[in-house]
């Protein structure tokens, strides 16, 4: 159902570095969880519309007006590494 290779592939998609132990454990656990999901195939949903939100609402808009956020410094201070007014990250290229 799900094998070690797929677990590694999904971990990469999710940007998670897993230890070999975690890889083995997740292969077993995700396998049984996915098997549990199989019961949904008992239901015929061919002509059923999907629900994306519980209470129907759509296209909530507001005027696109600039609002100044007063705690700009506090936002920058949250950064693990900051240089002046920038978030600093390791070299990309």
């Amino acid at each position, binding site marked *: 159902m799900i094998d070690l290779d797929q677990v590694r592939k*999904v971990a990469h998609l999710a940007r998670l570095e897993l230890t070999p132990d975690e890889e083995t454990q997740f292969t077993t656990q995700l396998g049984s969880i996915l098997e549990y999901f199989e019961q949904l195939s008992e239901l015929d949903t061919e002509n059923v519309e999907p629900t994306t939100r*519980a209470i129907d609402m759509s296209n909530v808009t507001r005027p696109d007006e600039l609002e100044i956020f007063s705690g700009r410094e506090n936002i920058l201070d949250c950064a693990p590494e900051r240089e002046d007014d920038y978030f600093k990250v390791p070299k*990309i290229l």
Partner: protein
Amino acid sequence: MSTICELHKQLTSKERSAVEITQAYLSSLQTLEPKLHSFISLTEDKALHQAQQIDAKIAAGEEIGLLAGIPIALKDNLCTQGIRTTCGSKVLGNFIPPYESTVTQRLADVGAVFVGKTNLDEFAMGSSTENSAYHVTANPWNLETVPGGSSGGSAAAVAAEQCVVALGSDTGGSIRQPASFCGVVGLKPTYGLVSRYGLVAYASSLDQIGPLSYSVKDAAILLQAIAGHDPHDSTSLKVKIPDYLKSLRPSLNRRNQRRIGVIQETFGSGLDPVVEAAVKQAIEQLQELGAEIRVISCPQFRYGLPTYYIIAPSEASSNLARYDGVKYGLRSDDADLMSMYVKTRAEGFGAEVKRRIMIGSYALSAGYYDAYYLKAQKVRTLIKEDFEKAFSQVDVLVCPTSPTTAFRVGEKVNDPLSMYLSDLMTIPVNLAGLPAMSIPCGFDEGGLPIGLQLIGNALREDLLFEVAYAYEQATSWHERKPSL
């Protein structure tokens, strides 16, 4: 147990000051904390400062609202400006929010006193509070058992009188299940009734903030203060908020007899016989109070659990992509960007969070989307339709909140599926966006509380309050206290 109204009376009659009340709660909070570990952070200085402001208002002869000077605990996934908000995760261990959540702002505006931030399962993912990166919270009724989760810290704090009321959040049962395990009242409002602005996102189409309290009336007072439209949350509903206190009457409405539906599918295998007996007794009591009892079938109810464990992790895998070590939170230093991402997330997240990110990423990945995510969204429609049919026949639905009472610490940590099963009866409600409440309805042979779940149609919190209050007035379960 003091209620909001009792403390309010003490304040307005000048029998006790807000500072005195706050100090009394802080002192019992600290005495109990080594046993319970309900909190991640205490905010004594802020609490005393807020209390002093209320005392100044009283001294100046100003009128104060019901929540003014009332000690409140906040689940630590609600952003509080300038106060560390960890979400029970290592990844947010040093996070000081630069802004305030709408709910905490509204409570501060009416003068509530914040005593601290309560423990939770990391990112609200769990049913026992054992997934917290900080510590395990004990159930005040039996320290060897879990308080439920994910709002386990808030539920334990209310049950142990470390605060008067608390806020929690509920994505699949995270307010109601711990309320049931700890013998308190817990309410998940209609999706969109309470703003989610400043609530750390887990599964955005399901998350909702709500009150935990000792009494039904306190829950109504707290909901009144936090409900209502907020332009900062695009899913927040623009509706008129009724006066919930008007629903609190000593008996059920007799002129318009209330019809209460018992969901028959919730009384199947896996239900603890003690829970079944207590819930059936509560249903008889509701009949004696004047309700007409009908048996209702919700055939898709049992598909709620697998549906939830596809939809919620899918949304979570997307929501939690933001923890990348760039803008806030933990960063594991490394030479290049990709290894910084993967190491930060490996170090910052616990096992359950990783597991759900993995499930969600898998369910959304190419080739599997139709089989899992789309299928789950379609089943979600069927579950909603079951509820719609039910509410064309009855006013309120009842069932157990959880199939068992509190389980032992460590009992289910290595078996995720069995842990997930404790939310079997709360999850369908979130999928349909409905309001639901857990109220105490008995105790098992070991003295652990049992919860009765009341489910209402969208925006019918008033009916939940009416039924819950009438039941509470006719019973004495809420008067029992844990011996600590």
